[in-house]
C-alpha cells in the first residue's frame, strides 16, 4: 500500500466517528509523521486546548500562547494557530465564551476568556464565590470612578476616594475587601482589569489608574453609568459625555462582531 493511498483512506475513513481505536492510532501517528493531522488527532488537540484554557481561566491571569504550545500541543506547535482557532470556535459555540487575544509586544500573544452572554436579567441568580463577590464590588467602584473621570484617575485621588468611603485604611485590611491596595496594584493589574502606570516625565514619580484590557471586554459601561445614576438619583442620559462614550463603545463592539 503506497503512502498516498493510505493518506486518502485515512481522510475518508475517519470522517465518521470510528470505534476501531487501534487502527485510528496507527494511521494517525503515520499521517502525523507525514506532516498532516488526521481529523481525530485534531479533535483531540482542540479538546485538550479547550480544557487547558478552561482550567487556567480560574485565576483570570492571561494565558500565554507559548504555554499552550508547550503544554498541550508539544510537537504540533506548528499548527498552533489552526488549533487555537478551533478552540475559539468550540468555546464560543459550546461554552458561550469568547477567547480574546491580547497583544502586548508583537508576536507575544496572551489570551483571556470572556463570557459571551449578557447578564442583564439573569445575574441575580448567579452565586459567585465570596472573594469574587467582594472583588467585583471593589472593581465596580474603582472602574466607575475612572470612567466618570474620563478614563484616567491619579493614584492620590483614588486613595482619597477609597478612604472617604472607609475602604482604605493604612496597615489594616478591610473586613470585606481584604488588602485593598494590594488588590488594586497587584492582583487586578495582573488580571488585566486595571492598569497602574507611571505618569511620564514627572519627578517624584506619580502613578495613575486606567481601565485594563479585560475591563474593556468584560465590563459594561452602561451598567456602570446606571449604577452611578442610581446613587445620584438621576437619569443616565444627564451625563452627556459619559453617555456618548457608552453609545460609542457599544457601536464599536457591534461593528467588531460583524
Amino acid at each position, binding site marked *: 500500500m503506497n503512502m498516498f493511498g493510505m493518506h486518502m483512506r485515512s481522510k475518508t475513513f475517519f470522517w465518521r466517528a470510528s470505534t476501531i481505536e487501534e487502527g485510528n492510532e496507527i494511521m494517525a501517528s503515520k499521517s502525523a509523521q507525514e506532516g498532516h493531522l488526521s481529523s481525530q488527532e485534531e479533535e483531540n488537540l482542540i479538546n485538550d486546548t479547550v480544557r487547558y484554557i478552561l482550567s487556567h481561566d480560574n485565576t483570570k491571569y492571561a494565558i500565554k500562547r507559548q504555554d499552550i504550545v508547550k503544554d498541550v500541543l508539544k510537537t504540533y506547535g506548528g499548527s498552533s494557530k489552526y488549533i487555537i482557532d478551533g478552540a475559539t470556535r468550540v468555546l464560543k459555540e459550546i461554552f458561550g*465564551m469568547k477567547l480574546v487575544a491580547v497583544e502586548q509586544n508583537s508576536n507575544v500573544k496572551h489570551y483571556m476568556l*470572556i463570557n459571551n452572554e449578557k447578564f442583564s436579567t439573569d445575574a441575580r441568580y448567579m452565586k459567585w464565590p465570596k472573594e469574587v463577590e467582594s472583588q467585583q464590588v471593589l472593581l465596580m*467602584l474603582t472602574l466607575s*470612578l475612572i470612567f*466618570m473621570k474620563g478614563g484616567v484617575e491619579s493614584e492620590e485621588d483614588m486613595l482619597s476616594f477609597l478612604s*472617604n468611603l472607609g475602604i482604605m485604611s493604612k496597615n489594616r485590611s478591610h473586613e470585606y475587601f481584604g488588602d485593598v491596595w494590594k488588590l488594586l496594584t497587584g492582583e487586578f493589574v495582573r488580571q488585566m482589569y486595571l492598569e497602574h502606570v507611571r505618569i511620564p516625565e514627572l519627578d517624584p514619580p506619580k502613578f495613575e489608574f486606567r481601565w485594563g484590557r479585560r475591563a474593556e471586554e468584560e465590563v459594561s459601561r452602561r*451598567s456602570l453609568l446606571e449604577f452611578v445614576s*442610581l446613587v445620584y438619583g438621576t437619569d443616565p442620559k444627564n451625563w*452627556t459625555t459619559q453617555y456618548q462614550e457608552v453609545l460609542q463603545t457599544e457601536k464599536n463592539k457591534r461593528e467588531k462582531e460583524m
Partner: protein
Amino acid sequence: MINISVQNPEDALIDAKVVNASSTVLKRSAQALDTNLLSFTREEYYKNTLSDLQEESSVVRQGKLNFQKLASKAAECFSRTPPASYVLGAFQVGEVACAKKKEQKQRAKQEIERKSQPENVTCNKEEDDIEDSVHYIMNVLTAAYRQNKNKPICFFKLVINPDSFGATVENIFHVSFLVRDGYVNLSWDENRFPVIAPVPRNAIETKYEQQKRQMILGIDMKKWEELKKAFEIREAMIKPRSIDATQESSN
C-alpha cells in the same frame, strides 16, 4: 535657514522641551474639562454612595458599612466566566492517601517487631525460670522421698504453700510438668489421698513402658484452706523463689 538652526543647537533643544511641556499641560487641561450638564466630582460620588449604603443597612450595623448590598449590582456589570472546577477533583488525591497508609503499615510493623523482641526475651527468661523451678522441685521431691524411706509422699504436703495461694498453684503447675514427662509417679494411698513418688533414674530411660498416670485437680482458696487444716501444713516444702515475695498473703 538650516545653518542658523544648526548654529544654536542648545536653543533648539530648550525650545523643543518647552513645546513638549506645554503640550502636556494643554493635554491635561483638556482632559480636565467637563462638558456635562452634571459635573462629576469624587466627593459627591462617595457621599451619595455612603448615604445610599447607610440607608439600606440595618440599624444594628451602623458602625460598619455593608458593602455586600452592592454585590448583586456589581455582578451585573461584569461578563465574567464562572470558575471551572471538576466534580471529583484531581486523580492524584487517591495516590497520596495510599502512600500514607503504606507508611502507617510499615510503621506499625516496625513497632510490632520492636515490641515483640522484648517479649521474646522475657519468654525465654520465663521458660528458663520454669525449667529451673521444675528441676528444683524434682530435687526437693527426691530428697523428701529418701527421707521418707523411699515411700511416696503426700501430694498436698508437697505442693501446698500455707502462706501463699498463688505459690501453691504455681507448684502444682510445675509438678504437672514432671508428671507429664514421666519423672514422677502419681498414685493413691490407702486413704485414697494422692501420693507422689519420683521415678528411679534407670526407669526413666525406658519410659515408654511406664504407665503415665495423670490427675485432674481443681483447687480454690476455700479448698486450699481446708487442705491446710486437714493436713496440718505449717511450712512449705517447696520454697518459693524471690519474685513471689509480693504474692504472700496473710491468713
